[in-house]
């Protein structure tokens, strides 16, 4: 057993924290929330220069060749600083999926572009059915000559409006087993018939409705095999879920730190409110949720990183991270009092993201059902 980070991981954490503190202040976060694109090309370029987009991309494709677990360290810091932009969709949903499933040619074409910050990716998975189960995939792809023609709509697709490539999860066959007959395609942004519209969400995180109206995609853009796409999606969901947990637990830590600091400074009845046991208990509870969350998220991430069966661990981690982040930010607002409820206060930025994170890749009820199935119930 070794529950420490490596020295390289510690360095990555420290440099990420320093970089983001200067380069991604909350003023920028707010500005990007209100912006159309939702990201800063300058910041994106700098992140690429640091090698972040290529962190887990092998060196032969222009990346740094680090492991999934290293990415977790970085994502925790990004969550702590609530960095807006398409990092998650490009790297976690895009690059990892291409790494897992791409042909040699697809990898050669796309991975270097991702690593150097040239390409932004999105994963068009969920639909108005709003489920992460295969049964929710209705968007049809039909073979026609050298192409497939895609028709249908996707919803809650982060960053589709700025994506150079949208990986679309389609249904190519109807059958008794909904997991059979799923096929993935890499669709270039701007392909005729593709229409994206940003949906206003609580996290202002540029989730889109994406309409596919007779969108023609060349056969060579198929990712993985015809009708056999669901296991790829499942693998990506596992990685993405634990990656989201890392972001969330980083955000929860930041919200906790803010609350502890405020409780030490804010004076009422002639003493800092942190001297009152009621506030101390809130903060102790918050600390436990976050600290226990880190342990479980690291365990799940390690399990995924090692390629061990991880479904249950990941569901457990997400179930906990959801509740931890929501609890910490809700108590955080309570400790701050009225100021915590304002648009101007940073706690709200975290509170809104806690709920955005909760529903992403399955809320707590969904995760519990995953666990229940795993328990053999």
């Amino acid at each position, binding site marked *: 057993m070794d529950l420490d*980070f490596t020295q390289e991981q510690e360095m990555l954490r420290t440099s990420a924290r320093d970089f983001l503190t200067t380069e991604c202040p909350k003023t920028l976060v707010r500005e990007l929330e209100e912006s159309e694109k939702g990201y800063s090309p300058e910041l994106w370029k700098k992140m690429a220069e640091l090698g972040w987009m290529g962190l887990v991309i092998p060196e032969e494709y222009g990346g740094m060749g680090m492991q999934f677990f290293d990415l977790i360290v970085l994502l925790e810091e990004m969550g702590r600083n609530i960095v807006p932009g398409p990092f998650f969709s490009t790297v976690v949903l895009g690059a990892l999926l291409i790494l897992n499933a791409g042909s040699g040619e697809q990898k050669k074409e796309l991975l270097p572009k991702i690593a150097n910050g040239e390409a932004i990716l999105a994963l068009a998975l969920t639909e108005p059915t709003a489920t992460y189960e295969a049964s929710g995939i209705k968007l049809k792809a039909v073979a026609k000559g050298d192409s497939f023609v895609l028709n249908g709509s996707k919803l809650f697709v982060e960053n589709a409006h700025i994506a150079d490539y949208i990986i679309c999860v389609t249904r190519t066959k109807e059958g008794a087993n909904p997991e059979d007959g799923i096929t993935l395609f890499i669709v270039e942004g701007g392909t005729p018939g593709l229409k994206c519209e940003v949906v206003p969400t609580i996290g202002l995180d540029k989730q889109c409705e994406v309409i596919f109206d007779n969108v023609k995609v060349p056969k060579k853009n198929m990712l993985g095999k015809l009708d056999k796409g669901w296991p790829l999606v499942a693998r990506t969901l596992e990685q993405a879920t634990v990656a989201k947990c890392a972001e969330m637990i980083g955000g929860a830590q930041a919200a906790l730190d803010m609350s*502890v600091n405020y409780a030490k400074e804010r004076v009422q009845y002639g003493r800092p409110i942190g001297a009152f046991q009621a506030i*101390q208990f809130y903060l*102790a509870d918050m600390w436990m949720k976050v600290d226990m969350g880190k342990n*479980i998220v*690291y365990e799940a991430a390690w399990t995924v990183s090692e390629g061990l069966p991880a479904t249950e661990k990941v569901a457990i981690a997400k179930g906990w991270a959801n509740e931890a982040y929501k609890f910490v930010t809700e108590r955080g607002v309570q400790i701050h009092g009225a100021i915590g409820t304002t648009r101007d206060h940073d706690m709200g930025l975290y509170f809104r993201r806690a709920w955005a994170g909760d529903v992403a890749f399955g809320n707590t009820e969904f*995760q519990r059902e995953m666990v*229940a199935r795993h328990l053999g119930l």
Partner: protein
Amino acid sequence: MDFSFTAEEERFRAEVSAFLKKEITDEFLRDFEARGEFDFCPEFTKKLAQKGWLAMAWPKEYGGGGATIMQQLIFSEEAGYFGAPTGAHRQGTNLVGPAIIARGTEEQKKRFLPPITRGEVVWCQGFSEPNAGSDLASLQCRAVEDGDDYLITGQKVWTTNAHRAHWCHLLTRTDPEAPKHRGISYFLIDMKSPGIEVRPLINMLASHDFNEVFFDGVRVPRENMLGEKNQGWYVSQVTLMGERSGIAFPAMCRRLLERLIQFAKETKRNGEPLAHDPIVRRKLADAAVQVEVNRMLAYRVAWMQHKGLLPMVEAPASKLMGSELMKWLTALAMEIMGLYGQLQQVSKFAPLRGQIARMHMYSLGMTIAMGTSEIMKNIIALRGLGLPRG
């Protein structure tokens, strides 16, 4: 990071697990419960001594096993899972023994340690008093010098096993004028000494574990003082050095959860297996989350200790969360069992050998003993988060 155990550690786990599986059978538990016991079994303690697992954490020079923290963690996890009784030795191996190793004289070590490692002596702990519970350092039981001896007068309470114990390790006040932490001395007292009266306190399971203990001018030789005079508080704190992962709670809860899952699969209600009821599924899944998260926290505590760090905040958190988990999960079990949940173990109708109601009643004490949940939160807030004292 690496969450796996070494091959050697896995072998050790398999050995412990096989032994406990063989020893802690349903018959063993039935016999043991029929005597009205929950956790007290000197015969089992002796068997652990023979395996060399009783004082496994102690240094070899004192008859211990010199086990690593990781081995202790594994042992505690398996022992918790199988419900191995620890009542007959825990005070000796985990509390007074380590205190003697750390602060005892050579003579005290020679005299007191070997009987503990052999599993021959039962100790009780004379710490709490009627007016010194969470605020332990306010204790008032007096020890007054009288020639080469001390005379002890006062009352202790919640003294587990006082009626079975051969010896008592006792905190007394030797300097009433000093600040409260600095006027306390630590004594090792033979329970056969004249002037000791033990009165039973029966808990709500109708089991006799607790006692009140009255000391009326009990004579104790000076050589039975552990550590220096007025330093007793600090002597008592050295026991914080032992394995404090708190793994036993999640381990015990994991076993209970497995049984509940089985129960839910096998039991029909309104014609449907309980396991198909969405509310039951949801609750059991939530339990699985809590158990695993608590297990990981306990691993983290052990890991810190393994590295020589003091888990000053993590260990209290683990105790707090683990004991709360046990209370919550046993209550959940009662809920899922419905009418059957209320049955006592002697009932022929009782599922899971009538353990559930019993465990739930027992769990109430767990969030109080060894530092209440509230005290644990105070520690986290003050030491961990650096919040100001109220």
